[in-house]
């Protein structure tokens, strides 16, 4: 199954805007996407309740796994969100 491992760059971690964008992107994808801390449990990436519950902070290492149509493209986009600072600098 395709996956990505990334260190979270946005100051807000997966809270506030980066969290919302991450979940929206996963929800809009046809692929089934899961996310979690590396070495921890994976949760539904399309659920803001589940993703917020992970408590992913800036600097954490996370693993994203996707299966199904467009999995690679979805992972690329999610990885971009995880590695782009919020203010675009």
């Amino acid at each position, binding site marked *: 199954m395709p996956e990505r491992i990334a260190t979270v760059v946005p100051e807000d971690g997966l809270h506030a805007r980066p969290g919302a964008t991450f979940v929206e992107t996963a929800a809009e994808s046809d692929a089934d996407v899961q996310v979690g801390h590396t070495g921890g449990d994976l949760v539904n990436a399309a659920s803001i309740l589940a993703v917020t519950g992970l408590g992913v*902070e800036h*600097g954490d290492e996370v693993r994203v796994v996707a299966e199904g149509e467009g999995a690679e493209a979805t992972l690329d986009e999610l990885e971009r969100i995880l590695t782009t600072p919020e203010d675009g600098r």
Partner: protein
Amino acid sequence: MPRRLSGVGATRATGTGTAVWYESEPELGDPLAADAVDPDAETERFESARDAARGAIRAERERAAEQLDDGEAAVFDAHVQFLQDPQLAEAVGARIESGLPAEHAVDRAFAEFVERFEGTGGRTAERADDLRDVRDRLLRELVGGDRGDLADLPAGSVVLAERLTPSDTARLDPDRVAGFATVTGGRTAHAAIFARSLGLPAVVGVGEGLHDVAAGTEVVVDGTEGEVVVDPDAATREAAVGDERVDIRTAPVTTAEGTPIEVAANVGRRADLAAAADHGADGVGLFRTEFLFLDRASPPDEDEQYEAYREALATFPDGRVVVRTLDVGGDKPVEYLDPADDENPFLGERGIRRSLGPDADVFETQLRALLRAAATDAGGRLSVMLPLVTTVEEVVAAREAMESVAAALDAAGEAYAIPEFGVMIETPAAALLADPLVDHVDFVSVGTNDLAQYVMAAARGNRRVADLADPRQPGVLRAIRRAVAATEGTDVWAGVCGEMAGDPEMTPLLVGLGVDELSVAPAAVPRVKRAVSEVRDDAARDLAERALAAETREEVVAVLDGTVS
């Protein structure tokens, strides 16, 4: 006899009024016996409540956007997202199937999510109030009940509550409500953040003692001291009256003693210009020209840049616009500029080094556009700022480049003017060399993010060294002070344009350090202006002196928190 209850001050403002207790949680009644519940009907009730709640949240967001800044109003977008979450529908559905009516299913499903969030701690725990907010909305749709006229309180009310959700707080009318105090909550919860935006006196986290304050009692909410004073005496009341709230979007602000402090905005994309003007910025303190160069195949030509600078100047006809020359390299590579293959890009060829080296032609084009923009109607307030300066030679060379561009424009008969000229102080060398640098410039602006990173040899993005890359480190504070001190007794002004400038908690310290200008994210302008207006010059100087004398970050933090004197 006045009684004092202490909590956490959320706003540096004080209000006096009559206590009104606010009960936010709707009454649920008893769950019916399991066999009396029709799961299909209850599922339908839940779904229609969800649709209605979604509409209500969107309407709330529209209303809130008028009073709060965009980032804060976006809290309500998150609420819509919570409401539509697949796991929520699943959790509520399972409870309905087990025989609970919709309102109890919602209540219990949320209780579990709230528990999970609070158990995770940190920023996740802070979102628990958002969950409660969404839950209360759903419950109000399901069982009726309103918010006890929160939006329609008698003038001069002080709202007391167990807790206030974000939407509760956003409903408070600052013209009618004198302040609020809550049993639970912390400084970084939305209720406290909204209170700061609304300029509403607030004390949170007072604890159970707040329950002893009866409705109808006269109370003072002192957000500066973090105190609720019950039955205040004449002296306390009088002290509170002198603490008038300030309109946040007025023109330039001064400290309480009248020292003018410019509050400008950082602009990192075109849309920031309008946002900066909307939020009442005095001007632009950091125009990051990188955005003109990113996401394209070739650099913008002179005319395109000229238009961009002219537009920024026209947006602030009376305000200063500080344009930083191209700062690429490091973490900001631009492919077509043939980035250098540096082993450590942060210590490699970036900022002014590229402008005086491989990107000299790009620099020349940029200077031509800037000097032409300086000759437009509002151009007299243009300032040009050099990034990542470490030597006097760089400043001299950049000044010569500007003069030769001026000579070329003159020869070509083009209109131009020489703008104000300054440097960023974001390297230890620049801070240590501030005295000689000041002889060559009209202003300096301290970039606290990079300065902290370079002074402390600690990357900002690395959580393991986050305590080091902190502007409250004594090493960083002393570097900032050294740069600012070099401008004292000269015509050179000193600004700060890092994240530190946008934190209202830091405002008294920065003013005390002698800073003349703060450049912050557009949305932070109102709160920083408000913080400036509350600064007492003597107290700020004293605070800065004590912070500079501190030997550890912990001591600096304690000085800033007011826990040591």
